[in-house]
């Protein structure tokens, strides 16, 4: 078939809302866009293990420790599904990791902020996972089959994580004065970075147009951000905590909140490597990879020897 009819066939599939599968023909740019997006998502999961992992050894109760350890492990599992989904687009995990380690590939900027207190573990679950879910629910219907299916599993676990995060916030908000202050402080620090997670405003989002055309993305950054604010503000009110936005106001006409503008300058800065923890996060990933090299080599050499012995036998 000629490229024209292949492309027509691809477009027709999208129009019929059918999934694109690994063996199907796809435009080169579609493949590239997916590799970029899925790997960025995978990298976010494994880099995201670091700020939360920061509190595993200090979690304040046995139950909290188990919940957090299981959660961070889930994030690693998500990374694994996503790398596997990306590999169906004919790129190896080694290449993908190399892109992360050399700074060529990005991950979600939110993980460049530090988790300073135990309340941050609550805030990350509640706000960061909450924001992630907004994006991810939409991605369950994304046009690329392996990605959509990975997202179905991931969404189930993420909504669980969000509830666990909110539970931590509840305990703090209804606890001692010190705990309540800790919770408010975490909300103050995580609110704006969470709103930035949806990406720049639609007018200013370079990759969005194609993503929507190809049905990789089905809602715009601003739509998702608005939905997140509408959902989260009442949850903050229930906790008796105040959202750090003076412009926040219910707007009857639109049936949603009006809210202030995130500091897009800060956003750009963090994306370009100047967030509080960019260097530490990347260094931790590179260090783990480098220190693990001899382990991976030993496994490969042993497997080859074993294969040789099996053949000889």
């Amino acid at each position, binding site marked *: 078939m000629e490229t024209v009819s292949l492309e027509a066939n691809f477009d027709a599939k999208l129009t019929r809302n059918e999934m694109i599968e690994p063996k199907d023909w796809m435009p080169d740019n579609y493949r590239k866009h997916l590799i970029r997006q899925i790997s960025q998502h995978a990298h976010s999961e*494994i880099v995201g*293990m*670091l700020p939360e*992992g920061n509190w*595993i*050894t*200090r*979690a*304040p*109760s*046995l*139950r*909290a*420790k*188990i919940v957090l*350890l*299981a959660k*961070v*492990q889930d994030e*690693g*599992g998500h*990374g*694994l599904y996503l*790398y596997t989904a990306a590999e169906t687009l004919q790129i190896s995990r080694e290449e993908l990791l190399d892109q992360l380690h050399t700074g060529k590939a990005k991950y979600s900027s939110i993980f460049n902020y530090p988790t300073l207190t*135990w309340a941050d573990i609550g805030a990350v679950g509640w706000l960061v996972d909450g924001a992630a879910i907004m994006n991810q629910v939409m991605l369950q219907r994304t046009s690329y089959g392996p990605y959509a299916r990975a997202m179905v599993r991931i969404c189930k676990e993420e909504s669980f994580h969000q509830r666990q995060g909110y539970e*931590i916030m509840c*305990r703090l908000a209804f*606890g*001692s004065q*010190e*705990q309540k202050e800790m919770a408010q402080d975490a909300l103050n620090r995580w609110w704006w970075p969470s709103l930035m997670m949806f990406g720049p405003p639609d007018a200013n989002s370079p990759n969005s147009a194609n993503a929507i055309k190809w049905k990789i993305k089905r809602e715009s950054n601003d739509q998702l951000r608005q939905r997140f604010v509408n959902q989260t503000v009442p949850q903050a009110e229930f906790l008796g905590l105040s959202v750090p936005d003076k412009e926040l106001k219910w707007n009857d006409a639109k049936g949603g909140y009006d809210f202030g503008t995130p500091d897009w300058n800060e956003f750009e800065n963090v994306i370009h490597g100047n967030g509080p923890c960019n260097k530490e996060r990347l260094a*931790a990933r590179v*260090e*783990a990879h480098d*220190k*693990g*090299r*001899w*382990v*991976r*080599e*030993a*496994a490969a*050499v*042993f497997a080859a*020897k074993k294969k040789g012995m099996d053949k000889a036998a």
Partner: protein
Amino acid sequence: MSTSPAFLPFLLRIADTNLILSQRLSEWTGHGPFLEEDLALTNIALDILGTSRSIYEYAAKIENKGRSEDDLAFLRNERQFLNPLICELPKGDYAFTIFRQCIVDAFQFHFYNALTISTDETLAGIAAKAVKETTYHLRHTSSWMERFGCGTEESHHRLQNAMNEIWRYTDDLFDMPEGYADLVKTKVAPEMMSVKENVQKELLPIIERSTISIPDPSFMQTGSVKGIHTEHLGYLLAEMQYMQRMYPGSRW
């Protein structure tokens, strides 16, 4: 349920073993040599943390002084912890972590196996669950022992180093608190000599397959049943107990 004064220290020894080792294992979470192994090691950490919690819960009930599972884990000091020394040693490189884990897995597998027939039903129940989990842990770590021992020159060297560092802490695993004989007599707890024999039968072939050698002569460090630990434990507890110490009486 035993009324022996050795019963509570015995329970705490099992719970502390799992908590302290889990604390060390979880230091790898997010930093493992590759993703699948990161998940696998975290899984072991989670399993044993779960076991420690069940035992602390039971110990709190046995003690009956109004202390909770968290009080036992977070408000005892370095002279009151009863975990074997091997658990508290810093995580080292991946060969060290795997070697230590394999030793403890082999110990726990045979210890729990014997404990499943305890006359104490709660303990027998916890042991039955733990023995299933430990079967997988041991399979995992013993296969890595062989990979390291027979993999590359570097991995062999690292595994042998781990052996040289860790072996002297292995006898300490089998010590039990004063009065333990009462627990054996009433069949609450297993006789440790036979546990030790089984552990040796398990471990020696693994060590042999890994082509590393046991250091000779091998002097043994002990003392954990009396709460005499290495200097490492104090730092571990300082980190683990920080929140409970900083905010006394708070609920999380």
